[in-house]
């Protein structure tokens, strides 16, 4: 069987064999990784190593895992068990936590996400993920701030709520504004327009306004943690009600520096029934938008049923961290072989 031309990956026009990053950047990247490991080492974290291939996968609206067939018979390589390349090491690490691991674990590994490529995206990327049992929302954010100060050499890390950031740069309350109000704000812009025929929901409007009008202001001078996301964007984070006005927010936070999103953290959801419900609803929305549904049962759900200890978990894009640390404007400047050279 021969591959048709369309099946061949797109190659870099020059088809050069060398790396896209200069050597001094690759050296800086290696030094940053060594400092990152020292940071966790000094805080008593155990480095763990879990598989990239998994029978389970996360059911997220906008994460599309890559499928792998594990064949038994090399003559029929398309027949076998379906595995997924992990979109993050979250499932395996939570299984370790529920199975009595030491209270603080971290991992540096590869993760894979389909249909993501650009100056800040590569389908295969390096992720750093850590969990610490006993952390609450506050101490989880503080650990991330400490890591940013330590690795980026900045004096401080600021914090701003998702609501405040929207009030500052869009002038609307993201938790209360209607879809019409969000759309009207975007329509005022004479220079950029959201185009295309696809109808979008409230979260997608928020996402557009965040990308277009808020993100570039985040972490301008010093890194900034954006926290208290809308409850509808909780993913695997807990949800709580704000004391002032009972608005439901997700205990989820993201680290930004110079407008670039570097890390995402959760005060982890512990209740398996809530996750089951989110999985079901996500799959429904995926199918409505023409995407395949993903398996809802997983051994991480089993782990949650057996009892995941209260903890905070954070995932950090290492390629982006290296990029901002050395003043580059694309992760291609800190990757040896991005996907078009892979």
């Amino acid at each position, binding site marked *: 069987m021969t591959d048709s031309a369309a099946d061949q990956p797109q190659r870099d026009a020059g088809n050069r064999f060398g790396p896209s990053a200069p050597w001094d950047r690759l050296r800086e990247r290696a030094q940053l990784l060594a400092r990152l490991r020292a940071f966790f080492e000094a805080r008593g974290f155990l480095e763990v190593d879990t598989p990239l291939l998994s029978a389970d996968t996360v059911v997220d609206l906008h994460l599309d895992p890559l499928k792998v067939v594990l064949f038994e018979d090399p003559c029929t390589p398309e027949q076998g068990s379906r595995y997924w390349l992990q979109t993050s090491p979250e499932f395996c690490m939570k299984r370790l936590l529920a199975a009595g691991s030491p209270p603080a674990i971290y991992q540096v590994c590869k993760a894979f996400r389909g249909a993501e490529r650009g100056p800040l995206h590569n389908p295969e990327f390096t992720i750093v993920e850590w969990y610490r049992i006993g952390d609450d929302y506050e101490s989880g954010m503080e650990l991330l701030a400490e890591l940013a100060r330590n690795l980026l050499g900045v004096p401080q890390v600021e914090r701003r709520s998702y609501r405040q950031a929207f009030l500052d740069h869009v002038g609307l309350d993201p938790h209360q504004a209607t879809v019409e109000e969000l759309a009207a704000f975007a329509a005022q812009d004479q220079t950029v327009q*959201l185009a295309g025929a696809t109808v979008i929901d409230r979260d997608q409007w928020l996402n557009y306004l965040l990308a277009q009008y808020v993100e570039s202001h985040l972490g301008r001078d010093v890194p900034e943690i954006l926290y208290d996301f809308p409850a509808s964007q909780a993913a695997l984070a807990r949800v709580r009600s704000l004391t002032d006005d009972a608005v439901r927010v997700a205990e989820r936070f993201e680290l930004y520096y110079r407008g670039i999103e570097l890390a995402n953290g959760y005060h982890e959801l512990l209740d398996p029934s809530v996750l089951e419900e989110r999985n079901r609803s996500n799959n429904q929305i995926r199918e409505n938008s023409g995407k395949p549904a993903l398996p809802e049962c997983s051994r991480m759900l089993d782990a949650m049923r057996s009892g995941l200890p209260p903890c905070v978990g954070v995932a950090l894009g290492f390629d982006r961290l290296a990029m901002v640390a050395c003043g580059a404007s694309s992760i291609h400047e800190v990757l040896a072989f991005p996907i078009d050279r892979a």
Partner: protein
Amino acid sequence: MSTYKTSDFRKGLKVQIDGEPYLMVEMNFVKPGKGNALYKCRLKNLIRGTTLDRVYKGGDTLDSADVEEVDAQFLYKQVDTFVFMNQETYDQYELSAEQVDDGWKWIKEGTVCKMLLYNGNPITMEPPPHVNLKVEYCEPGARGDTATNVTKQIKLETGGEVLAPLFINIGDILRIDTRTGEYVERVRS
């Protein structure tokens, strides 16, 4: 006509928006947080040269624009229009002075230009990057003065004007860079 999905979006794509052809000159993939993918595009109108910033979402599509580049020979100028002939098909095209823009300064009968066709109709033309043209008129040259930093106004056989060194004479053939409109060298005196 075919359609492009957002996953096909890339720099250099020729698309049709509101019945006009555009070139995708920039394409940036963004995907904030746990949100959906967005495709930030800068699009250049191939007729008017204006640009447009548009953001598309996964699932959106754009129609392809039937745009092709052909070699066309300049035949002659009519009152207000310039007539070209497709080198391959011998089809003739009439371009307005507006479409030809500054290009008239560098083309004479027989000059082969690059022409952009949209749905088979010409929209823009570009003269070759370098052309050789005869000097129609200039003040007499100073013999022996080969300095190139002092210049004078030269009228070319096409009617276009350039600045060239003092030693240039009527009848000389000059090489011109059409992208900058500057004299490059004297090819033949």
